[in-house]
């Protein structure tokens, strides 16, 4: 009935040796997933928006709306 001697040393090292590579890999996967599902589409959306952006056209639309103080709408 006497119990055999269990392993008593290096238990944390054993656990870390198993879990740390998994932890690092999972973190990298999550970071990569976030990059490709969130940041890249976001950057692409901005790029697409500004590809066809006409600053003067937008400026004139704002000017006609009368929001500026330095230039009044062309009518006045």
């Amino acid at each position, binding site marked *: 009935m*006497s119990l055999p001697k*269990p392993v*008593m*040393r*290096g238990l*944390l090292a054993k656990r870390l040796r198993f879990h*740390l590579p998994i932890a690092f890999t999972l973190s990298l996967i999550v970071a990569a997933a976030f990059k490709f599902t969130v940041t890249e589409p976001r950057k692409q959306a901005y790029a697409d928006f500004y590809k066809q952006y006409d600053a003067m056209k937008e400026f004139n639309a704002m000017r006609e709306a009368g929001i500026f103080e330095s230039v009044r709408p062309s009518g006045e």
Partner: protein
Amino acid sequence: MFRAALRLSVSGARSLTRSPPQYAAPLAARCYSHGKQETDEEFDARWITYFNKPDIDAWELRKGMNTLIGYDLVPEPKILDAALRACRRLNDLASAIRILEAVKDKSGPHKDIYPYVIQELRPTLTELGIPTPEELGIDKV
């Protein structure tokens, strides 16, 4: 476990796994890449000598136990035996029982370690009249 994890930095753990397979026991206290690495027996002997000091004082007992608990290992029954006898010399039953609680805590999820240690220490516990936390009913909250 968290304290042990802090002690064992990632690089430390990595170097431990590459340490020479002397009895397959990485030693958290020594992570030299050079110099002789202490064997398990030398480690145990050093700690037994520490606790066997006839005139050990209470501070040294506490310091020794706290240092020992910080390592990535559950202390061998022979080290614990020396520590319990030091408690006896210091008339410190509370620390003796606390040492047993610490062993159980250090084992973490490995439930087979504590019963084994108690089995090995049973003669000493009987001789010194030290009850286990289970016998006192203080192992449950």
